[in-house]
């Protein structure tokens, strides 16, 4: 068995004394794992950093085997990421989220957004807004997407200001009035675009964090990633 493609390195873990097992998000193939013999050598150290794009070749005797990777560096982002704290935290968080995806299940939309975030050149607040949108898309790709298109109570598509924690659907300002203490605030940038302020970012991460915990982390008995708190604290 053999295939090759372009992928984003999302993690590397040690295997034995000299090898590593790399996790790569490959276009059209999803999250793939493979053994790299000699992966702990200094020669490969710069290539095997999360956030780098590589040309990856996978080979194994049978489809269900772990298989081995042959990698060639296409885009070295890691060096630029480690120089910028906000981008570094964002990249770590994105890679952490990508680990939640099932193995060998293509999620090209999410991969594309992840790469755009890694290459993002805007302000820290704009970057954080992209990460919040990415978390919404992650929920959607995992089958737990929020419906922020219309009000759950009235059906209106205007003046959507809150989200119901029970249904994950948007609620309009008038319908939300009696339940403000029980609803999440819906930051306008998540539905209409634009640049958010710190309070809106905090609202966005509170919203996505709640649903990620409810539908993803808690059922899998996972703790929310520590890097998420660090990133959110930095940008809000």
């Amino acid at each position, binding site marked *: 068995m053999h295939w090759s493609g372009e992928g984003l390195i999302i993690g590397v873990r040690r295997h034995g004394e000299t090898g590593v097992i790399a996790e790569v998000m490959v276009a059209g193939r999803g999250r793939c794992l493979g053994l790299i013999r000699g992966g702990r050598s200094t020669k490969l150290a710069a290539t095997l950093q999360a956030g780098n794009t590589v040309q990856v070749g996978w080979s194994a005797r049978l489809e269900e085997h772990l298989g081995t990777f042959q990698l060639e560096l296409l885009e*070295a982002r890691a060096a630029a990421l480690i120089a910028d704290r906000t981008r570094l935290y964002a990249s770590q968080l994105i890679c952490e989220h990508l680990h939640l995806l099932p193995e060998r299940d293509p999620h090209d939309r999410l991969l594309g957004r992840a790469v755009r975030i890694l290459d993002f050149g805007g302000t820290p607040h704009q970057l954080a807004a992209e990460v919040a949108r990415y978390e919404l898309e992650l929920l959607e790709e995992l089958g737990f997407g929020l419906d922020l298109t219309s009000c759950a109570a009235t059906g209106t598509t205007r003046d959507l200001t809150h989200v119901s924690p029970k249904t994950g659907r948007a609620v309009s300002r008038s319908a939300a009035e009696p339940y403000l203490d029980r609803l999440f605030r819906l930051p306008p940038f998540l539905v209409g675009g634009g640049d958010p302020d710190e309070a809106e970012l905090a609202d966005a991460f509170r919203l996505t964090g709640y649903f990620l915990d409810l539908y993803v982390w808690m059922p899998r008995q996972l703790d929310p990633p*520590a890097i998420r708190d660090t990133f959110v604290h930095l940008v809000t």
Partner: protein
Amino acid sequence: MANGGPEIEQLIQLLARLPGLGPRSARRAVLQLIKKKEQLMIPLSAALDRAVEAVTVCETCGNIDTRSPCHICVDPRRGESGILIVVEDVADLWALERAGVGAVKYHVLGGVLSPLDGVGPDDLSIDALLKRAPEFNEIVLAVNATVEGQTTAHYITDRLAPSGVKITRLAHGVPVGGELDYLDEGTLSQALKARTAF
């Protein structure tokens, strides 16, 4: 396949667990130990016994020594520079000592933040570092130039910010003997950004 009695087999199995040794090389090592019982095996056994009794982890810095606090922490000359170097592992501390970096003190973190391996801030010796920080004028973050190492460095910098201590990190760039043609683009770009007057 058995290699002599169970004692020898156990010795082979234990040695095979050491880094750099597999079952075959462990068998060769055991054979050599048995052949040179007086010159190697007995002194090695005695040295291991002594090490088991004496070796301890320094409660101040996390270094491995035969006393706690270790000889580095109690050396009065090392306190004069006011520099504390933070490293990931004891092996990094030993590497810096070999390099003769001068009269400095160290702090061993015990690893780096690694979500994939489940290593979080509570698993590292960061709280102990925060307690020590006010004693120094400068803290050098000598962690590896990897994504995980630098995430840890940024995290520690954030946590140390209230202490007001000067925080620096090792330079990233061209290693001695390195040829530009063979360097990855990222390192080369960082080296160019961090260029110094010549």
